[in-house]
């Protein structure tokens, strides 16, 4: 029997473990100390401690992960997303240690993971790129001169990077030197390499990405696009498939560009090619994510393809069906974060005292938490994802709104109210989403104060005022015969010690 070491945590580790179980493959989880009772640890067929708590010595440590693979008796390693998922060095180390890496070959990762290289490769394939500078000469003068040619505003990006780290928006020339310094520092600490590129900032665009699967026999298929324009600080919040801004003809051209690029790069397994789409229907290549994406479930919902299952099957040598799947209906994903949208999206780790996840027709929840788990401060604030599918975009929005209403998560602050406001916004309903959507419509957003909630809080206060004073045997309005009416309050107070 084959064994997969799941080298990640949270909801994506849970997702991979579920796929393994469905394929009849053994899964072994890894965990840092704060995660010792996390759902992914409890769900896997085995679990190996990584020791310590900080990401660098645990989920980001190549030697520790390889040691865990040895102890687990694994023959495959799935990296999830984030952490080491886009490290060509990690993929090579896994292969050299004799395990199968569930992802692309390290050579293809290195080729595409470097933004400058990827831009040049795209141009060779005839794919338009955002006007920019990846010229290799890294002096301040070279950047200043290139920036004058490109014009402001522009983006400074880490050549080795992704996920918004090592990225700076520069409005005018006098801010460039400081932005270069800052981006270089961040890039070095995040990716171990300080190389930078410049790109013209295109303003209000749609962020569209094409999901591709490639097997070891040379079959490369596009599974359609996702739109991920609703972002805060370059982090995605809401994603959907298909994009409301992509016509069937454009979809075909995007798919052709994405598959041509990955074929040229010798790519295998699941990958995503990102594009910017301007108001005139022109698209520009942005970057390749050489891994599974957080938002992969919207593609799974519209194509019926189990992407994580196929990642494993491709890694085990299985060929893809020759024809790409048909796209059916519309899917939306909302990311539930432990953060405070009213305070600049500050992370808000903490305990989860009450958790009721939504369900019902067309609703899927990918979750990495459970009631009683304490969300660690050391890692990413993503808690779970809600995915809604229906035949139409309008229907998917209605299902999402209903599901978010039903989602109960108490004990730490979350963005659940914020997500409801985003999904309910007129501009979102009209599909008018660009990368400026949140900045334009939600600056200074505050959560609502519903009257029924205020009434409930006041009524609970009255009830609480009565609870401790209750002398034994005294007749009180007892709403329910046989049960102790104060039991619920004691339950409520259980967690009171640990704020």
């Amino acid at each position, binding site marked *: 029997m084959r064994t997969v070491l799941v080298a990640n945590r949270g909801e994506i580790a849970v997702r991979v473990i579920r796929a393994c179980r469905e394929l009849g493959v053994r899964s072994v989880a890894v965990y840092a100390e704060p995660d010792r009772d996390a759902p992914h640890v409890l769900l896997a067929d085995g679990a190996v401690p990584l020791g310590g708590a900080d990401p660098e010595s645990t989920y980001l440590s190549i030697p520790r992960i390889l040691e865990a693979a040895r102890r687990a008796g694994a023959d495959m390693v799935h990296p999830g997303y984030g952490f080491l998922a886009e490290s060509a060095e990690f993929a090579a180390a896994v292969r050299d240690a004799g395990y199968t890496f569930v992802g692309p070959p390290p050579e293809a990762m290195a080729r595409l993971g470097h933004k400058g290289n990827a831009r040049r490769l795209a141009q060779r394939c005839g794919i338009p790129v955002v006007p920019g500078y990846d010229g290799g000469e890294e002096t301040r003068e070279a950047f200043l001169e290139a920036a004058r040619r490109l014009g402001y505003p522009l983006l400074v990006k880490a050549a080795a990077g992704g996920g918004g780290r090592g990225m700076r928006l520069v409005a005018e020339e006098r801010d460039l030197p400081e932005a270069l310094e800052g981006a270089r520092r961040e890039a070095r600490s995040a990716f171990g390499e300080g190389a930078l590129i410049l790109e013209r900032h295109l303003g209000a665009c749609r962020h569209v990405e094409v999901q591709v699967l490639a097997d070891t026999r040379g079959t490369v298929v596009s599974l359609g696009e996702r739109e991920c324009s609703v972002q805060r600080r370059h982090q995605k919040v809401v994603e959907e498939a298909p994009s409301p801004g992509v016509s069937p003809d454009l979809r075909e051209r995007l798919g052709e560009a994405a598959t041509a690029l990955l074929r040229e790069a010798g790519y295998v397994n699941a990958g995503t090619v990102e594009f910017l789409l301007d108001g005139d229907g022109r698209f520009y290549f942005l970057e390749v994510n050489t891994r599974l994406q957080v938002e992969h479930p919207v593609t799974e919902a519209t194509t019926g393809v189990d992407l994580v299952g196929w990642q494993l099957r491709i890694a085990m040598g299985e060929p893809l069906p020759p024809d790409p799947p048909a796209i059916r209906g519309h899917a939306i994903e909302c990311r539930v974060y432990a953060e405070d949208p009213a305070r600049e999206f500050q992370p808000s*780790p*903490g305990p989860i*005292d009450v958790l009721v996840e939504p369900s019902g027709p067309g609703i899927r929840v990918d979750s990495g938490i459970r009631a009683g788990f304490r969300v660690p401060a050391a890692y990413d604030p993503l808690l779970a994802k809600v995915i809604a599918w229906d035949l139409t975009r309008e229907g998917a929005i209605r299902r999402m709104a209903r599901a*978010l209403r039903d989602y109960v998560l108490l004990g730490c602050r979350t963005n659940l109210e914020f997500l409801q406001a985003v999904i309910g916004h007129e501009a979102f309903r009209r599909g008018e989403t660009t990368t400026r959507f949140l900045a334009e419509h939600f600056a200074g957003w505050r959560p609502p104060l519903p009257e029924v*909630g205020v*009434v409930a*809080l006041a009524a609970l206060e009255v009830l609480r005022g009565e609870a401790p004073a209750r002398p034994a045997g005294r007749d009180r309005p007892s709403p329910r015969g046989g049960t102790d009416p104060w039991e619920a309050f004691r339950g409520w107070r259980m967690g*009171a010690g640990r*704020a």
Partner: protein
Amino acid sequence: MRDLTLLVHGSPVRVEAARDGSEIVVRVEGREHRVRIEPAGPSAFVLWTGARALLLHVAERGDRRFLHADGHTLECEVADPGRTRMPQGAGDLRAPMPGVVTRVTVREGEEVRPGQVLVVVEAMKMEHVVRAPRAGVVRSLHVREGEQVDGGALVAEIGPVGAAAGGTTP
């Protein structure tokens, strides 16, 4: 009627509430609501408003209460009228979020400038800096480097220059 000030999402909301037999009467902004409320298992209550039964989920962390009702999540603190609330004024500096104290850059008794960095808290790869809101003296420090702090925990107190450290605030 009991006067209550609820700090809902940090905004003060004044309400009046009292029991009336099996019901509870709540007045919010001039409107009167008559409700019944019943415990419904651990962390749950049922709120009856007219013919509608609404399931409430509740959780409590220190002074903070969380409520889920009718599709909304509310976070609330109750200002207790029986106890004079310490003015959570400029002098009390609290951790903006739970995390690890990575730096403490001042000592007790030290004079500080407005905006001066006092303590740095890190959580989920984000740094948050606690700064002096005005000029003054660090009267007390409640955290050490490497220490885990809860969101809202007191990290330092700033007093006026010249006041003795550890003295009482009016």
